[in-house]
């Protein structure tokens, strides 16, 4: 089999991070090729380059032996490359066939008008559906479809444009188990009709089911390319998370106190009715770092929003130091003793058009002691911000009055950390606390987290960096598909990797 895609020494960087580091690999025509790796490994970036959405910094890409000089989605479509993204691009109030044919409509010309040939369009789309075994009601509105059906429309869009190379970016992340089966069957069908498939995923069982070969990316570098048949899921997991992790941070002996946070039977459905959390149970003690490990999209965001109070549409019980806070608002939970460092720092944790002092004040500004005589005591927060800028080494242009929008992501994160940690509350949630920080800041942040642990705080750590979890946590819970599969204080990396990818249950 000849190579349909050849990637040679491809490198792509974004400010602060090398997303793809000197990657070379080949994809053979007609095979199902999987791209495996954790979050941030560089899989999506690589595929986006292939689909023409970004240009590489250096290196070359050959499609069917021809070098790519121009990068654009339109050009990629002409070259026969199609991509099903994680976020669908569909016109909601159009029908299935209208979405598929949009941009390459079948028309009948009459005078100056190009009339849509509905009949013919529907016929062709139906024929296409039959050919590849992808049935969806042609006349259904997108808004009435399930997610799995919408995905089928995205696939049909590619096939309608005669895509030969089909890229699927984490396609099963949004599907229910039965739908996953159907999709995998479809992928095999497509392969049988001569298509080349690239499957970007972190789910090992799926790779085992359909892929021929797979490549493993870790931190932007290509680790290895192997045949699926000769590799066990255990080996795959090992390759993905690696065995040689250096743990720098020194952790003290555990000294746990009483239970601070208790979560009982937490279940949550999103507004499409899909179960995002299924009967979550765990508890956290004083002085304990409890980490939830898993690949992004398995329910971590929902847990954070539920416990912090941003999303109160769950069933189940949450209690803090014995107080039932299940129905408390965000502010009430904060007053009861909960700090929260959210994942989306720009939209949730900060008001980026405010300055540092104002952001520092977000948890306290309304309190009577800062509003004497009806006037806000801005001076107090300016002073506090001054102190925190020094203490946490926050880089800014104009002191406490620096507008947060002008600061780098890492320093924005420091503002949130400073605010929340200084509250000295019994319970803190950290979600992705070191994302986007440089090495020095990462080290410092981990020190802060360990310091809080030393002070006897209960800490919930949600992170997509397995290495970070291993370095910091006392207890690890692994989440997969909205369920906590295992809680333990003595898991090996390999085991965690297996739970994370659904290889072990």
């Amino acid at each position, binding site marked *: 089999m000849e190579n349909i895609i050849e990637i040679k020494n491809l490198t792509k960087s974004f400010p602060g991070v090398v997303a793809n580091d000197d990657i070379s690999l080949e994809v053979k025509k007609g095979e199902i090729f999987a791209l495996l790796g954790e979050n941030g490994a560089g899989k999506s970036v690589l595929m986006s380059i292939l689909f023409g959405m970004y240009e590489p910094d250096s290196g070359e890409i050959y499609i069917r032996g021809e070098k790519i000089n121009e990068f654009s989605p339109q050009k990629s479509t002409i070259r026969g490359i199609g991509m099903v993204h994680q976020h669908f691009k569909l016109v909601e109030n159009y029908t299935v066939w209208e979405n598929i044919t949009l941009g390459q409509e079948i028309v009948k010309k009459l005078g100056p008008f190009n009339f849509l040939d509905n009949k013919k369009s529907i016929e062709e789309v139906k024929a296409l559906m039959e050919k590849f075994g992808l049935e969806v009601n042609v006349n259904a509105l997108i808004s009435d479809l399930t997610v799995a059906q919408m995905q089928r429309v995205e696939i049909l869009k590619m096939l309608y444009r005669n895509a030969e190379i089909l890229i699927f970016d984490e396609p099963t992340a949004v599907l229910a188990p039965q739908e996953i089966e159907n999709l995998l069957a479809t992928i095999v069908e497509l392969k049988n009709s001569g298509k080349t498939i690239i499957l970007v995923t972190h789910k090992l069982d799926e790779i085992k089911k359909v892929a021929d070969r797979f490549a493993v990316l870790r931190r932007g570098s290509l680790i290895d390319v192997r045949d699926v048949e000769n590799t066990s899921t255990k080996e795959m997991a090992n390759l993905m998370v690696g065995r040689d992790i250096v743990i720098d941070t020194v952790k003290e002996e555990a000294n746990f106190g009483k239970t601070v946070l208790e979560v009982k039977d937490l279940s949550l459905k999103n507004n499409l009715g899909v179960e995002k959390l299924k009967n979550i149970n765990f508890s956290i003690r004083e002085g304990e770092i409890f980490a939830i490990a898993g690949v992004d999209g398995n329910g971590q965001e929902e847990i954070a929003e539920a416990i912090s109070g*941003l999303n109160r549409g769950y069933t189940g019980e949450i209690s803090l130091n014995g107080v039932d806070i299940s129905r408390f*608002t*965000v*502010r009430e939970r*904060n007053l009861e003793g909960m700090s*929260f460092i*959210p994942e*989306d720092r720009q*939209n*949730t*944790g*900060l*008001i*980026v*058009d*405010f300055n540092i002092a*104002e952001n520092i004040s*977000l*948890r306290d*500004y*309304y309190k009577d002691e800062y*509003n004497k005589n*009806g*006037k*806000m005591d*801005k001076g107090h927060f300016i002073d506090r911000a001054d102190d925190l800028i020094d203490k946490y080494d926050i880089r800014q242009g104009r002191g406490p009055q620096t507008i947060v929008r002008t600061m780098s992501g890492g320093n924005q994160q420091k503002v949130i950390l400073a605010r929340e940690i200084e509250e000295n509350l019994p319970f803190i949630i950290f979600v992705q606390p070191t994302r986007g920080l440089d090495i020095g800041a990462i080290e410092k942040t981990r020190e802060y987290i360990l310091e809080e642990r030393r002070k006897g705080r209960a800490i919930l750590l949600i992170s997509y960096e397995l290495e970070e979890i291993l370095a910091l946590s006392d207890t690890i819970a692994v989440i997969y598909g909205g369920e906590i599969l295992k809680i333990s204080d003595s898991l090996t990396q390999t085991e965690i990797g297996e739970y994370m990818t659904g290889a072990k249950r």
Partner: protein
Amino acid sequence: MKKVLEKIKMPLLAVTISLIFGAIVILLLKKNPLEAYSAFLQGAGLLPKANYGGNQNQLSDFFVFLDGTAPMIFASLAIVISLKGGLFNIGVAGQMLLSGFFATILVGYSPLPGLVAKPIVILIGLVVGGILGGIVGYLKAKFNINEVVSTIMFNYIIQYTTSYFIQTSFVDPVSRQSKYILSSASLTFKGVSAFGVKLDISISFFLAILVAIYLNYFLNKKKDGFEIKMVGLNRKGSEYAGVNVEKTIIKTMVISGALAGLAGVSYYLGYMQSIQPGVLGSLGFNAIATALLGGVNSIGVIFASLLLTILDRGSVFMSSRLGIVKEISGVITSIILIFSAISGYIGLKLSERKKEER
């Protein structure tokens, strides 16, 4: 000082470009732009005229000018606070009309002495405008009805309803407007003899300045003002900070409506002394220009209001002196608005370039 300069760069640019545009048009009409612009200033009492009618001089012109600026200040403040809260109150014209109407029929013809009548007029302005604003805010918070749409609906409902009642019950057959209010209810003391001329002394103007200063204080120093700004900038972040977003939206619109109400009573029971039925008045819409030109800032809109009122009031005199149709002031105002609207884009482009250079 540097901060102030930074802020007025864009508005200054917008005004300059618009004045140049206006100058070109004036030249095309074979008139002298400098003469025209100084005539504007003369009409507003900022420059002396060649001669005056009896009981009038530059001072009296100036006082009338201040009187005319007051409603504009209130109206643009109404828009400023709605924008700060992330909302767009384009229903100011309707809110003005409704409050002016109620004040007129409730107090405008009543025998109450001035000392009692005037505060009640102000109160009515605040209450009627506030309630109307509150309804709009409630519809937005609870039903997600876009405030631009609902305020347009209310504008017309108010326009027609008040028109009906004025024409059937309160009309002056000669002027075809509502009957002139009694001077006891007027927020402007018309024709006060002083310094050898008759002055229109406007309570509303001083009130407007005070309100602008207070609104500035409110937005910068009061907890409620802080929350309004927060919600306007980032709803999700505000939820995180514990703000009751729905309540804040309603609060914002109540304040905005109340300010529009003050604009209404200062316009219809101050600067004017009657209401023309069936007309919404352009002031509520021109206030958008003022708000943007003033940098969406309570103090800035004072200056913007003065400028735009010069254009408005001065145009009558300029027109009689130079024979240019007075509506050119409306054209210049619109052009200022165009450039104020674009300035956001230009500002973005400039800051993008600065980032690249760094």
